[in-house]
């Protein structure tokens, strides 16, 4: 008899194709837009025609009389509606007044979308205009129009953080810098527009097909809205056409669709048009930011003081809470002993901002990393050395309470600098600034710190997993964590394969049905690989222990001397096969003990919910990165060409090389769009470019060459050593671009975006 042996076979770090990619490449994936239920009605919303006005009268009689219309609702028809959003200042249907052009006034459910649209035109609304408030710097002036009676000062939220003593920091400083930065609106522009389908069964239970990134949190809110037990709500998430944070809050169209489904007794589908998507969806938070920084002659940072005005728009969503992240960058990206942070989010009649990949960090890093260059230049220190001098080290606990158990910032800095030739190029380009010719070349650097091990912004930041093996060693992994295109499904399957020694084809991931999957806080804060990954590993290890204990009995070996490899139970020392995994599972199942291998695990990261002063170790791990950009500026036209990005990212460990490259590349190009091409223009409360013709996403020919290096710091808490990385790559780009423009032209631009027009103006104003 020949002895069969098998070797350890790991998928970690390999280039693993996404499990859902073949379906998507064949056009077979069904998104919410592609789902149609029998008897389904189509819903449309009437948005306000005015930016700020009292609603004097709404008449829906003609709309209701249109053949094919099943329901027309206004605020008066839905007394059960409750305010939504972060501050619960947002009624889904507005009855008394409109506060922005996006406001919902009425909604129709009809046989077809065309009839619903026709019905909207028949709804008569009489307005009485109110004075506009569209400049956030004027919101707190005496006599400013009041947006919400509940906030007569127009203040939506205030955030304050401090450590040390700014006065002491100032006294210790040899140089102090102060600048104002202006960060514009951009929007997610997901390729798949927003949509939802709601259906009530005969018992009054709600089934919702939703694109939400936080199904378990939303169950509760919808339950409150309907006055039913959350257990009677089931949310199914079809594959989603892009998330990026846009689906972290409830928006009015969702409860409105519920109300229509309830009233008509039919399934109701609501899907936006692209124009609606642009006009009604949340944006990235626009910020006016004042930064003061102090430094000693030897290059030691002394203090940082950051004050911002956040334009809250008419309603409060996650955008207002971006200070959570912004203050982390201000207090802890570099070592700084004295720090003060203050944000006031003020109401206006503008669109409101939600969460968006990077969550305020693009804005904070834009200011902070420009100051780093400015200080270095004033001190005559190379900006790389200046950053290295103040960079965090592993083991550090910052005054804000963040504990950097692993920290690859210094390695990121030196790697990105060396691979790009940053130091030499920066000197050379600065020397060529005044040479003849309109094309000026520049190189710029920025670094970032972001949560990489979840973010405990709720009392729990956990994720549950249920795992089962069938008689043929096929694994079903039921996870609370949603797949939003980022590849979590594939990474979770890989992590399970690593524990159970089964091939990737033997794992099915179920991740889209709240009646089946255990609780998870949601897809945000770059947390899914870390949190759901650790949860999946926990469940798989319990299954492994059970299988090996049973195999130990059969083989007379100790469980710790056994291993699972390539679908076999083997002796760990030499890989000798003892029996196949499926045979072991069947013998467990069909023995007199009759057992199935099914396990559960709930992973709660060892992070803490920050206190009222925003102090505490909010994440179980922290991600770091440095990006260097190389650009050419045409001073005759203001056109910038982004030629190359050299990125070094501390990702803990690479789990899927193909997937992580995709995350970094996509993030870099999203950051490029934020810096250079995207400009969501709001004039007098109106979005003037709600289409892809005038809202410019980066296109295929415009992308830079990308050189990406992964720094593997092997985080002790991370799944197989990995940290979260979803948001990190978008964060540095605008800051690095600003520093590169300065290197190329000598002009420091503190206002985004760097469109040709804006760059041209800035150069001419500076006499270039």
């Amino acid at each position, binding site marked *: 008899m020949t002895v069969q042996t098998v070797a350890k076979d790991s998928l970690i770090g390999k280039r693993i194709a996404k499990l*859902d990619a073949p379906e*998507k490449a064949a*056009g077979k994936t069904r*998104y919410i*837009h592609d789902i149609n239920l029998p008897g389904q009605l189509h819903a449309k919303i009437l948005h306000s025609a005015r930016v700020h006005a009292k609603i004097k009268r709404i008449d829906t009689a003609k709309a209701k009389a249109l053949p094919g219309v099943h329901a027309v609702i206004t605020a008066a028809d839905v007394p059960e509606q409750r305010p939504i959003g972060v501050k619960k200042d947002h009624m889904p249907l507005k009855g008394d007044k409109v506060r922005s052009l996006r406001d919902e006034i009425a909604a129709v459910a009809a046989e077809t979308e065309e009839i619903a649209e026709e019905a909207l035109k028949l709804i008569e609304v009489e307005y009485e205009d109110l004075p506009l408030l569209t400049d956030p710097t004027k919101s707190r002036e005496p006599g400013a129009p009041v947006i919400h009676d509940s906030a007569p000062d127009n203040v939506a939220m205030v955030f304050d953080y401090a450590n040390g003593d700014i006065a002491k920091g100032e006294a210790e400083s040899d140089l102090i810098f102060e600048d104002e930065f202006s960060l514009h609106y951009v929007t997610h522009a997901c390729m*798949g527009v927003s949509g939802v389908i709601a259906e009530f069964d005969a018992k009054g239970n709600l089934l919702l097909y939703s694109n939400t990134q936080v199904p378990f949190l939303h169950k509760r809110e919808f339950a409150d809205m309907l006055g039913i037990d959350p257990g009677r709500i089931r949310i199914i998430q079809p594959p989603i056409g892009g998330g990026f944070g846009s689906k972290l809050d409830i928006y009015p169209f969702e409860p409105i669709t519920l109300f229509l489904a309830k009233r008509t007794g039919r399934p109701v589908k609501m899907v936006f048009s692209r124009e609606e998507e642009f006009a009604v969806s949340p944006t990235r938070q626009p910020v006016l930011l004042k930064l003061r920084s102090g430094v000693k002659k030897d290059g030691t940072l002394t203090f940082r003081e950051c004050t911002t005005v956040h334009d809250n728009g008419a309603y409060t969503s996650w955008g207002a809470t971006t200070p959570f992240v912004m203050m982390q960058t201000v207090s802890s990206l570099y070592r700084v002993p004295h720090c003060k942070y203050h944000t006031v989010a003020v109401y206006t009649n503008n669109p409101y901002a939600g969460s968006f990949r990077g969550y305020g960090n693009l804005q904070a890093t834009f200011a902070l990393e420009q100051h780093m260059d400015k200080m270095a230049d004033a001190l005559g220190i190379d900006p790389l050395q200046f950053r290295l001098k103040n960079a965090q080290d592993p083991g550090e606990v910052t005054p804000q309470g963040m504990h950097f158990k692993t920290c690859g910032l210094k390695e990121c800095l030196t790697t990105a600098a060396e691979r790009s030739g940053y130091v030499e190029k920066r000197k050379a380009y600065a020397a060529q600034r005044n040479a003849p010719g309109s094309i000026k070349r520049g190189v710029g650097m920025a670094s970032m710190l972001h949560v990489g091990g979840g973010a405990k912004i709720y009392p729990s930041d956990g994720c549950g997993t249920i795992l089962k093996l069938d008689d043929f060693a096929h694994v079903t992994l039921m996870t609370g964590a949603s797949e939003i295109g980022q590849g979590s499904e594939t990474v979770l399957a890989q992590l399970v394969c690593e524990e159970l020694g089964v091939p990737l084809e033997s794992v099915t991931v179920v991740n889209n049905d709240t009646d089946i999957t255990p609780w998870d806080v949601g897809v945000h804060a770059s947390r899914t690989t870390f949190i759901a990954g650790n949860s999946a590993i926990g469940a798989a290890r319990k299954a492994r222990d059970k299988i090996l204990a049973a195999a130990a009995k059969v083989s007379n070996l100790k469980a710790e001397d056994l291993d699972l490899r390539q679908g076999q139970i083997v002796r760990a020392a030499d890989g000798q096969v003892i029996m196949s995994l499926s045979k072991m599972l069947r013998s467990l199942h069909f023995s007199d003990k009759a057992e199935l291998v099914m396990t559960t695990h709930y992973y709660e990261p060892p992070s803490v919910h920050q206190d009222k002063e925003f102090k505490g170790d909010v994440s179980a791990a922290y991600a770091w990165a440095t990006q260097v950009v190389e650009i050419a500026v045409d001073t005759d036209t203001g056109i910038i060409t982004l030629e190359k990005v050299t990125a070094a990212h501390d990702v803990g460990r690479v789990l899927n090389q193909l997937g992580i490259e*995709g995350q970094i*590349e996509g993030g870099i190009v999203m950051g490029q769009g934020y810096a250079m091409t995207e400009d969501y223009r709001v004039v007098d409360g109106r979005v003037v470019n709600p*289409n892809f013709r005038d809202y410019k996403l980066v296109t295929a020919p415009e*992308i830079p060459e990308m050189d990406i290096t992964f720094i593997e710091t092997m985080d002790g808490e991370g799944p197989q050593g990995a940290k979260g990385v979803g948001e990190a790559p978008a964060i540095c780009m605008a800051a690095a671009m600003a520093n590169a423009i300065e290197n190329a032209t000598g002009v420091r631009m503190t206002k985004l975006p760097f469109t040709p027009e804006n760059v041209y103006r800035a150069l001419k104003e500076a006499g270039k």
Partner: protein
Amino acid sequence: MSLAREITFTLNGVSRTATVPVTMSTLEMLRDVLNLSGTKYGCGEGECGACTILIDGKSLNSCLMFAVDCDGRTVTTIEGVAADAKSQPLRDAFVKEGAVQCGFCTPGMVVQATHVLAKNPKASRDEIQRGLEGNLCRCTGYKKIIDAVESAAKECV
């Protein structure tokens, strides 16, 4: 109801007849009348490329074309491309090179890449980038999509 017309055309290799309102776009006909949901609505204005199809072998935004104009022509959608064994290397390359994330732009990208490679099987990287200019992607940063089309082009040669 608006005026309707009967049209006959070849759809993914099969001749078929449909009665469509004269105001209906080809995209709406494909999705709502013929139940071919692989072609996506992204903007309805010809700006994003999610609805790209082939008309007589050339790529076109189906949202901009009236359905009645399909009369007498050959229409190929992602479903037709996916059923064509000749396109297998291209779709495999999208999978293997990591060109797919949320996947919403992917059908349009695959159809557009089919057109680019049909026109020029030896398309250079630069030509591929130009060829995909009208198709927007929000997830990938395009690099892996370009890589996929380039590797399929090499395989064709």
